[in-house]
């Protein structure tokens, strides 16, 4: 327990020490591309609290949340169907692996041609890219259901519906959650990339524009905000996951103890 607390303290202080080091090291900087951190923080406050909050942060976050939610639902549903219907799996698995190998950013120009450059394009590119990690994790999770668990299902004569929804899906859920976490990361990356074309709106678009007009402090402020959002969304995801999978985490702990 002591060790655990020590690690936690270390994890919390280390970033602050690094930020302090950055602050000190950059305070005398005259390099236009690496402005002092104090300047960056001033711009951060000016830009994001609250001038561009409604105009840029909200649209970006909305696209991220809708895109990720759609990708997670679609990923689980399609993955579940493919894992439980062998014919479909044989038919589609190879092409799935081909599709997920395409860098999502490369699809943005194609999506512009198909759906234009509205928020629809942004959300669809997030969905297309972020669906695969969840989909594949769901398929693998269901395929990996313990054989003894299957035997138990047979012994209890569970019908197909109960078997799939009450046994297979919960048993695959830790893996599905891991897949969703990767999906969240991908969704975040594509959210930024999708803002590089079309209306210049969103955190990614603002950051790119700042870079191209040599507003280095604004650019760093955008990068900081993106890092912060990425970090916080991951923390939030972990909280939800730990809650939803508390039975699983508990059982793992029990295993360790016994």
């Amino acid at each position, binding site marked *: 327990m002591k060790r655990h607390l020590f690690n936690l303290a270390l994890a919390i202080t280390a970033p602050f020490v690094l930020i302090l080091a950055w602050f000190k090291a950059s305070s005398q900087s005259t390099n236009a591309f690496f402005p002092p951190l104090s300047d960056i923080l001033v711009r951060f406050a000016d830009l994001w609290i609250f001038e561009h909050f409604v105009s840029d942060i909200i649209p970006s976050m909305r696209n991220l949340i809708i895109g990720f939610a759609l990708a997670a639902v679609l990923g689980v549903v399609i993955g579940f169907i493919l894992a439980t219907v062998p014919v479909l799996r044989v038919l589609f698995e190879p092409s799935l692996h081909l599709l997920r190998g395409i860098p999502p950013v490369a699809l943005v120009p194609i999506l512009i041609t198909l759906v234009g450059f509205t928020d629809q394009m942004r959300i669809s590119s997030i969905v297309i890219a972020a669906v695969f990690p969840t989909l594949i994790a769901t398929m693998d999770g269901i395929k990996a259901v313990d054989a003894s668990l299957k035997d138990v299902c047979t012994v209890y004569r569970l019908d197909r519906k109960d078997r799939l929804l009450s046994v297979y899906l919960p048993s695959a859920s830790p893996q599905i959650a891991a897949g969703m976490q990767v999906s969240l990361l991908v969704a975040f990356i594509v959210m930024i990339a999708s803002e590089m074309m079309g*209306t210049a709106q969103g955190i990614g678009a603002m950051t790119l524009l700042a870079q191209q007009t040599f507003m280095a402090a604004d650019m760093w402020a955008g990068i900081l905000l993106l890092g912060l959002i990425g970090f916080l969304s991951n923390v939030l995801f972990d909280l939800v996951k730990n809650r939803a999978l508390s039975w699983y985490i508990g059982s793992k702990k029990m295993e360790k103890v016994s």
Partner: protein
Amino acid sequence: MQKRALAAATTLTLALSLTACSAGSGTADGEDGGMEKFTVGVIGIGSDAAIQTAIDKGYFAEEGLDVETTVVANPPAGIAAAQSGQLDVAYTPSIPLINALSQNIELNVIAAADGYATEALEGKDPGKSDDTGLFIRPDSGIARARDLAGKRIAVPARKAQLEVTVANMVLKDGGDPASINWMVLDPASSLQSLQQERVDAAGLVAPFTTNAQAEGMKLLGSPGIEFFEAGAVGLWVAGAKQIAEEPESVAGFQRAIYRANAYANEHLDEMDELASEITSLDLETIKNGADPYWPSSVELKDLQRVDSNLVNLGYLSQEVGLDETLIHGAQ
């Protein structure tokens, strides 16, 4: 959490080492016969034919320079590399240069890379001198620049040449450029979006201007020549530190480029062929586009006009204030 800390540490180290690099990296002396290695950032456009000529004809070699060109993604990237010494010289149009100067990035203009001849504005067909064009659908109902207020216009990048020059057209014609909804699109998507009625107008650069005309789109105006009028638009720039460290190489580069510019203006057919090689476009498309022009000097007043226009249009809050020291070798 620990992983994140590690990533942050790596990023920080990288950032610091980049700062360190920019502080004092010169160009290594070439080994081959006392030739100085000299790297130049280009953006791969047709007017690069002149610098290619200087390489091919040995103008640089005569100055003791072993010039190597690297294609950079866009002018801001080239400027960043030139400022930090990664490149000795980079290509940039005057607008990104003035944007950079307004942010205290120390740069000097070495030579003219492309531009418009003084007589171009009086010329019969601005479309033949301007390598940029503003296109609309023939049935769009837009008759003149001021009709574009409140419309969607596609440009390759925000706050860069096409946006600024189109905004200038609209303002001069009595419209309000602030009401324009700018869309960032690559040229190919831009033309397609115009046809699909997703945008109302598209600002395009050669050779896409030729494509737009071939697709039946209507040229509403030539924003480049209206804004710049005459003189150098594309410039070769270097970081101030770079120039201080190797004044002779920079002077040699300047002499060789102007020699090549003069040759290029006299041999347009040869340049078209080179441009076709550089851009991988067929020769006919190149010939159908605007006639390129390579100025023999950079005039301060041409850049000052751009500076004050940027303020008038609201892109800069105040003039950068350019003087002779900006242009290398001009006293």
